[in-house]
């Protein structure tokens, strides 16, 4: 893969699969019992190796629950920040047991180099982490000067009322002041069936519903992920550990730069970046009689998962991809250059 051509901007590190929660349908199946993680020394080395990828701008620390790494996490924040990366993280906010603890944790993280934090909540998360902690964590993060977001998972019939967040006086004031954002995201079934609840979504949420705009996948080839098993993957979507075709190699025995340089660029990844998975499946549907689109999919990553697991779709796409490759490469080249210049 030519690094003068492929220009990833973000490196996401799934630092650990251990979590204080065990959310039903967690995308990575994280629980308190899982202990697999990227070894400390390898995390340090990966941050250093990120410097060899000229286009990388940010390093995102996620899990599991990466704050379980304790002070070690701050050391990684500091190392990444010292190398000039924007440092981001995602957490469930379990550490915000009270306002003072939350303030201390966010102040330490900010001092180490953290710049942006996203706190996850919703019905599944709230079964393990009280919403009050998410609120305290967000307030503390804003006070520490961090770019802060609260992400609320949602699905049909969820019992979680987002107003528990948005109607809270402190949260509302921060949102009004433009210092905090609150977003909703569809909670979707685990890619390999590791979930109990039957998740349903309103039909108008379908990625193929009338009026839904389709766009290129802005994360594939732009946001690379390292898993606790040290697999390097070409995206950071929720099924990132369940789509072998997106793996770019193991980092157990090679550096980040070596893995990228040695792995050929998959034309389907280019196609995903430029067109997006919905348009690719519509391409298939236009060539295969009575092709069944995954109408239940409410998230682009679900469509992408379907695409990679459907042999008919893969055959049609792989048959045509070589002929489109150069044109898609040009489109990707312009898009990624423009995006890099804007970041």
């Amino acid at each position, binding site marked *: 893969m030519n690094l003068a051509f492929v220009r990833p901007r973000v490196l996401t590190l799934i630092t650990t699969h251990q979590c204080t929660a065990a959310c039903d349908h967690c995308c990575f199946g994280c629980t308190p019992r899982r202990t697999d993680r990227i070894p400390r020394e390898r995390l340090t080395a990966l941050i250093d190796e990120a410097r060899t990828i000229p286009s990388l701008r940010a390093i995102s620390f996620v899990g599991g629950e990466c704050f379980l790494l304790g002070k070690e996490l701050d050391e990684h924040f500091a190392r990444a920040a010292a190398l000039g990366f924007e440092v981001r993280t995602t957490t469930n906010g379990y550490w915000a047991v009270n306002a003072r603890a939350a303030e201390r944790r966010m102040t330490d993280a900010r001092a180490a180099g953290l710049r942006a934090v996203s706190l996850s909540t919703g019905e599944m998360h709230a079964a393990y982490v009280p919403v009050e902690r998410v609120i305290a964590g967000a307030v503390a993060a804003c006070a520490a000067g961090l770019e802060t977001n609260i992400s609320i998972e949602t699905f049909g019939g969820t019992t979680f009322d987002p107003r528990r967040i948005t109607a809270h006086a402190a949260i509302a004031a921060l949102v009004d002041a433009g210092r905090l954002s609150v977003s909703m995201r569809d909670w979707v079934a685990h890619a390999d069936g590791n979930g109990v609840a039957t998740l349903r979504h309103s039909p108008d949420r379908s990625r193929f519903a009338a009026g839904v705009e389709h766009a290129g996948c802005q994360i594939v080839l732009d946001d690379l992920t390292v898993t606790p098993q040290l697999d390097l993957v070409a995206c950071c979507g929720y099924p990132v550990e369940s789509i072998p075709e997106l793996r770019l190699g193991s980092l157990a025995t090679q550096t980040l730069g070596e893995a990228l340089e040695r792995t050929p660029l998959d034309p389907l990844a280019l196609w995903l970046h430029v*067109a997006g998975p919905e348009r690719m499946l519509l391409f298939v549907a236009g060539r295969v009689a009575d092709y069944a689109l995954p109408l239940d999919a409410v998230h682009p990553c679900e469509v992408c998962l379907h695409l990679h697991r459907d042999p008919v779709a893969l055959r049609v796409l792989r048959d045509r991809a070589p002929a489109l490759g150069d044109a898609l490469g040009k489109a990707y080249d312009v898009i990624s250059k423009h*995006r890099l210049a804007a970041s």
Partner: protein
Amino acid sequence: MPDESKPKRPLPPVAAVTWIPHLTYATPDNDEFKTELTEDESDKIREALGIDKA
């Protein structure tokens, strides 16, 4: 004065691609595409995006 003595390389056919809405987020004015995409490449991107030729 430009050197007119050398034979000019024919320019590739240029396709206007402002009709590709997906690409507008990345290239608001699409100028770069207009100068870089040949008609054939434009057709292929259109095919990949599932957009009928206008």
